[in-house]
């Protein structure tokens, strides 16, 4: 029987396009110090550390050993996890496994990225097969553009529908003091932004951000002593579908990995109607079209109903299922930290520490990670001890 596990503290940097004032280790340190302060712990209380960022993004190998000065990993067990865009959620899930196993009681999870130090697209390209896929259809934009146009063709969704997702997330970012892009946009702004690859425009996609996030997890019995309202892990699920781009061009099935992962998590948690039962969702939506399509995979609404569901305001902060009160990925994308920020922001909602972005009475929260070749991680957190 695994130990019950809760998030008891979170910390994040004030995210920016570039951080000349700190090197990588120093930026990691900022998030760790804030997370420890949040739960009134010191680094001596931490039994083990899980850390992750994107391979090739900063030309740092062995980030686990190299970062110990900043992470606090000097003379502690430390492990690197890197799974592409899902890295941050995988880091959180690996930390959860560590505590659940009973071998560790207090574990620190860290995700970070300094996008300003390299060429993000050149680095992302290294995720695709060097012989078969790398020459053209790689990097973030081409596969997302194909996914978006397939979705529009299937359901008649429009560029306007997608733009609403950017309007929502960028509006929410105004309430998050840590967010990178804190300037609201209109549908007209998004429509007028430069076309990158049809139908994806600059206003539809996430920025490149320098930032770090750290989360402290603690075992049952300790968590309640550390903080009055821990965010308990109810379920987590991981799905990796394929690695060759051509093996999964049936976009009409929806985001299969997310559908699959969320069904497993809902089943574990006994959730039947996610849009009604979940109080808040922090979703890894790397571009606006994901905000229409992926909420269908999550069963917030029926396939093809995403545009209507968003337009009707159901995902607004005062809607049926508030999505991304933090401003989401479209407002902040320090990639290795991005999915951990989703988990941290979900925990912040449950702990009631959201300030201006707090969803009133949030008790059951969903966080997702997205990356690689349409892979998905899902984490469900709850204010009630499971």
């Amino acid at each position, binding site marked *: 029987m695994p130990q019950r596990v809760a998030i008891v503290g979170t910390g994040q940097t004030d995210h920016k396009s*570039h*951080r*000349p*004032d*700190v*090197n*990588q280790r*120093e930026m990691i*340190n900022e998030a760790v*110090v804030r997370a420890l302060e949040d739960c009134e712990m*010191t*680094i001596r209380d931490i039994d083990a550390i899980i850390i992750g960022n994107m391979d*090739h993004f*900063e*030309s740092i190998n062995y980030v686990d050993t190299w970062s*110990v*000065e*900043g992470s*606090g990993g*000097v003379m502690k067990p430390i492990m690197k996890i890197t799974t592409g865009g899902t890295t941050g959620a995988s880091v959180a899930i690996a930390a959860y496994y560590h505590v659940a196993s009973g071998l560790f009681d207090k574990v620190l999870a860290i995700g970070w990225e*300094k996008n*300003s*130090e*390299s*060429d993000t697209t*050149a*680095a992302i*390209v*290294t995720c695709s097969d*060097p*012989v078969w896929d790398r020459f053209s259809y790689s990097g973030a934009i081409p596969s997302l553009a194909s996914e978006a146009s397939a979705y529009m063709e299937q359901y008649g969704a429009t560029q306007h529908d997608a733009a609403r997702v950017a309007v929502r997330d960028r509006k929410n970012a105004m309430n998050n003091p840590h967010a990178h892009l804190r300037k609201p946009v209109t549908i007209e702004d998004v429509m007028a932004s430069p076309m990158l690859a049809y139908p994806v425009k600059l206003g539809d996609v996430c920025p490149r951000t320098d930032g770090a996030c750290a989360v402290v997890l603690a075992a049952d019995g300790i968590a309640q002593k550390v903080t009055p309202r821990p965010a308990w892990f109810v379920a987590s699920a991981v799905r990796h579908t394929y690695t060759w781009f051509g093996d999964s061009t049936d976009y009409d099935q929806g985001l299969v990995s997310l559908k699959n992962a969320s069904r497993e998590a809902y089943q574990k948690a006994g959730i039947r109607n996610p849009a009604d039962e979940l109080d808040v969702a922090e979703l890894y939506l790397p571009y606006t079209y994901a905000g229409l399509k992926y909420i269908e995979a999550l069963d917030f609404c029926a396939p093809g109903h995403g545009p209507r569901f968003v337009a009707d305001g159901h995902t607004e902060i005062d809607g049926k299922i508030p999505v991304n009160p933090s401003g989401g990925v479209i407002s902040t994308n320090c990639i290795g930290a991005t999915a951990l920020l989703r988990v941290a922001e979900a925990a912040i909602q449950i702990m009631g520490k959201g300030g201006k972005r707090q969803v009133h009475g949030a008790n059951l929260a969903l966080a997702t990670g997205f990356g690689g070749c349409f892979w998905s991680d899902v984490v469900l957190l709850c204010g009630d001890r499971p």
Partner: protein
Amino acid sequence: MPNWVDEVEPMTFKGQIAVPYTWWVGDTGSRFLEAIRDQATFLGTRCPDCDTVYVPPRKNCGRCFTALDQWVEIARRGVVTAFTIVRANHPLQPVKSPFAYALIRLDGASVSILHLITKDLARLSIGVTVEAHFKEASQRTGHILDIDHFQII
């Protein structure tokens, strides 16, 4: 059993990606590089908890996890704590062989800095005293190799 290379050509595929990394040094490291460039002096940071003096300077003590903001000026002289002599040449090496990569603990520092010893290698041993020789002011760019080499005294 037939050999597969008799039946099909072994193909390879050449990579084309060169990622242009540019790392921010940060305010702490930049102060050190500015000091060697503009004053030909060394700066370190001291940990208030364990008294360790770090050169190059750190923003936090890895062992104590304490933020460091006490700056200390460090001598140009120190002792060699470890070294290896390089006798082969390679384009990536900063100077022509023979030379030594040496760990040097400057007077006033608790840790050693990695640098080069290029002369009098026959006299090189652990514990020997060395002194920093800087490049001409006009040649210095804010790089660790603004220190040209360390000279055995």
